[in-house]
């Protein structure tokens, strides 16, 4: 099957004299490098200039709240089950009286941890979630000095109150 028209069959034929003195080939190579002198440069001047993230970029997770500021997550555990890297740990708890303004469902996650060293940012948790709770944002997971700092708890994951934007437009790095 021919995939591209650039593929060549390898033959071990004897080289002609012109091929053996290599000079035409060297000149051809030098022509190519010279043409690159005038091509558009691929460099991005990093601190001043930043590259656009792809629309489907998957970065740090966020645990969504609904319009009234209640956590969507009901600790069903589907995200933890779907996670191929087994990065998610959940402990479920029952919603007490008077906590209706905090949690949307009767059951909620008292502990929701993602180990960012294990996470491969595949986005399967986002797809598995039936409650629209976990999303992957365009935020980067920064480097840390200690391994334990990579285990993100609810303090880092839950969407801050008052930022009720759609997760895909929730871009803290964009001004």
């Amino acid at each position, binding site marked *: 099957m021919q995939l591209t028209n650039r593929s060549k069959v390898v033959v071990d034929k004897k080289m002609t004299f012109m091929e053996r003195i290599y000079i035409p080939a060297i000149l051809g190579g030098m022509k190519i*490098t010279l043409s*690159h002198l005038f091509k558009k440069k691929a*460099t991005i001047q990093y601190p001043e200039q930043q590259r656009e993230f792809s629309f489907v970029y998957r970065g740090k997770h966020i645990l969504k709240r609904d319009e009234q500021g209640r956590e969507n997550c009901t600790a069903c555990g589907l995200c933890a089950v779907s996670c191929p890297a087994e990065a998610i740990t959940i402990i479920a708890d029952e919603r007490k009286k008077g906590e209706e303004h905090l949690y949307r469902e009767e059951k909620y996650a008292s502990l929701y941890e993602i180990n960012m060293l294990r996470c491969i940012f595949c986005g399967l948790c986002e797809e598995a979630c039936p409650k629209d709770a976990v999303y992957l944002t365009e935020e980067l997971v920064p480097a840390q000095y200690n391994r334990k700092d990579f285990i993100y708890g609810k303090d880092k994951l839950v969407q801050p109150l008052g930022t009720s934007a759609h997760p895909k437009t929730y871009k803290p790095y964009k001004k």
Partner: protein
Amino acid sequence: MEIPVEFLLEKTIVVVAVFTISLVIAMYSTYAERKVSALLQDRIGPNRAGPLGLLQPLADGVKFFMKEEIIPSSANKALFILGPSIAMMTACLTGAVIPWGSYLDFNGVQVALQVTDINIGVLYIFAVVSIGVYGVMIGGWASNNKFSLMGAIRASSQMISYEIAMGLAIIALIMTTGTLSIGEIVQQQTTDWWNIVYQPLGFFIFMVCSFAECNRTPFDLPECEAELVGGYHTEYSSMKLGLYLFAEYINMFISSAVMSAFYFGGYDIPYIETLNLDQNMVTILGTLFFFTKIILFIFLFMWVRWTLPRFRYDQLMNLGWKIMIPLAIANIIITGACILIF
């Protein structure tokens, strides 16, 4: 033997100027190397230190000086220091016989833009280059390290092998010009065609050999960073390493100058005499033209470096002994036949 003061003063100024210019050009060759490599690879290159990154060589120099100076405890201390000194010294010595321009006329006092036009200038360059091998050998041996020694032997055998072909290429040139003085070789080209017309094959051999002499790609086995554990300078650090690397850039500058003086007319601008310019004007323009040629050659060095991969050691020796030397001898025979016939 009395030496007039004016003569001393004149020569001192020329020497200092040549020395400074070769150092500055070598310094900016390092910048140009990085810039050219970047441009050929679709990058931008140094642009942070100063406008357009022009202060980058200074930053590199400061970096080299600030780095920790390590002399291995089992190394031979005196020779370890002597190695890079010889490399740098021989690199700087060659500039003395190259005619950088014709002469300037200050109210009847003629100042030649050449340190000295000795009648064996061509051989002088060879002598200095052959002494330069010691810098590499001593440095590699004094490090007291197997890999340095192997690197030194690799480097010096490469330099000796290509020196032969280079010398044979030059013999053909000397046969056509009939002189060993570089000033005279350039002088002949101002009235005649450039030597490249008479010696195209000789120029090609000379160019390839000077690539090898300067340890430039595709012949940069003496210092390949990736697969041969550096080379003779494995144990070197700080400014001693800097001297080795810097000497290489000075050598590149000098061999560009030699190539343009031998084969491309040196400071000669074709048909400049038809413009009837002032002598000083002609000299200055000629010198500028000479430096343009040199810079083009330096660019060629870099262009080749970022195009071709490195030779294997046996390929390098095969090319030197089995192709370049027979070619150079054939060139001598052809040249001799042509001189005999015409």
